[in-house]
């Protein structure tokens, strides 16, 4: 105890000492007191060690670059209601899909600007849930010869369809199917990886131009990224982590937009 600070050392002093929140005079007083109190000194040392381990353990996430979907610009932009984060069950999802579809239909002729992406995402996630569990017929047309699939989809949709190659992301093309959606069918391609994780790419026309940011949505264990590009809407959906799914979304986006520019 120094003469300059005669107050007795308390529990709060010891915490503030560990946390570096004492002024120099008080710190010196506590340091001197600790020399005479080895048990308290051991506790202080243990608290510091625990703090350092905790910081080290949690450092990596704070050092990472911020994911694009957490940028304020991507959250605060001209946006509509988000996909409900937690859908209670499949029935509610089906109801949302029905409402979303109706709103999209009514809105198409009357409301200018990009149509909401959310009903699209709901439709894509519903389709994902319906077809990924299919053991016998997950796809209508298998990807044995991928040109046949491309030709078939393009013929049915009346526009060239790009089938992205996602082998670099660990996903192989299984095949595809058409789905009813508004006034033009939607195309759904299915991929899987070595562990049996299935992923779908849902795309359909009907959105006015512009280029949207990736939008992330999650419903229970199913994650989806959606975006709009050149009048087409895309949704990738899988039961996987967001980082992996984002890499897939970026790869798809690069391939479909690259293909289109190349074709010009």
């Amino acid at each position, binding site marked *: 105890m120094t003469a300059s600070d005669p107050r007795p050392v308390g*529990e*709060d002093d010891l*915490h*503030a000492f*560990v*946390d570096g*929140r004492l002024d120099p005079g008080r710190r010196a007083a506590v340091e001197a007191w600790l020399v005479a109190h080895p048990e308290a000194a051991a*506790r202080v040392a*243990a*608290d510091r060690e*625990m*703090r350092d*381990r*905790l*910081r*080290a*353990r*949690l*450092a*990596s*996430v*704070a*050092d*990472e670059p*911020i*994911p694009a*979907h*957490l*940028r*304020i*610009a991507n*959250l*605060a*932009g001209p946006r509509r209601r*988000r996909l409900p*984060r*937690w859908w209670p069950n499949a029935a509610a999802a089906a109801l949302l899909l029905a409402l979303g579809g109706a709103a999209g239909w009514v809105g198409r002729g009357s409301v200018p600007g990009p149509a909401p992406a959310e009903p699209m995402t709901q439709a894509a996630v519903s389709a994902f849930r319906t077809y990924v569990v299919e053991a016998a017929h997950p796809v209508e047309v298998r990807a044995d010869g991928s040109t046949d699939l491309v030709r078939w989809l393009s013929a049915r949709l009346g526009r060239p369809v790009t089938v992205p190659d996602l082998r670099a992301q660990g996903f192989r093309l299984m095949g595809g199917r058409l789905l009813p959606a508004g006034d033009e069918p939607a195309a759904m391609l299915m991929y899987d990886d070595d562990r049996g994780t299935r992923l779908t790419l849902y795309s359909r026309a009907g959105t006015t131009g512009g280029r949207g940011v990736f939008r*992330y949505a*999650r419903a*229970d*264990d199913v*994650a989806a990224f959606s975006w709009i590009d050149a009048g087409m809407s895309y949704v990738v959906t899988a*039961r*996987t*982590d*967001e*980082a992996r799914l984002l890499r897939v979304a970026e790869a798809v986006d690069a391939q479909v937009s690259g293909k289109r520019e190349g074709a010009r």
Partner: protein
Amino acid sequence: MDDLAVLIEPQIPALRRYANALLRQREAADDLVQDTLERAIRAWPQRRDGDLRAWLFAILRNRYLEGVRRRRGIEVGPEALAEVAEAGVDPEAAMGARDVLDGIAALPEEQRSVLLLVAVEDMSYAEVATVLAVPIGTVMSRLSRARGRMRAFLDQAPTIVTGHLRRVK
């Protein structure tokens, strides 16, 4: 919107760290951060001057508590658990010591948040009191209890000491 980004975005790494410490599941943690940021953007016009960091952390913690109340724990899929185990094993835990995050997870939430905000986020006791909306004395007593429990936790011998890392399913 740009000034909003300039003010808020510097806090995002710390918000993610806190969310990860609370949930220990990256996707759920980023969902929580996204939810927090959306709240913050909406509430921005009503925000009174004051500590921005404390304001954001308070929103995050309140959203977290609401989520826990509503769901009684966040559902975590098996893939997600594997992810967590792979993402970062406590090096000391790999050597047979106990994982410090297991100790944190075993604390009551009010003690856990105080310890995380003080020790990891380096907040002043007054700032933590603002985040939790409790008096500073309460912050100090929770901090004291949290540290006592953590010392006891880390002192205990680990349950299994082998040459292997924890099982990654």
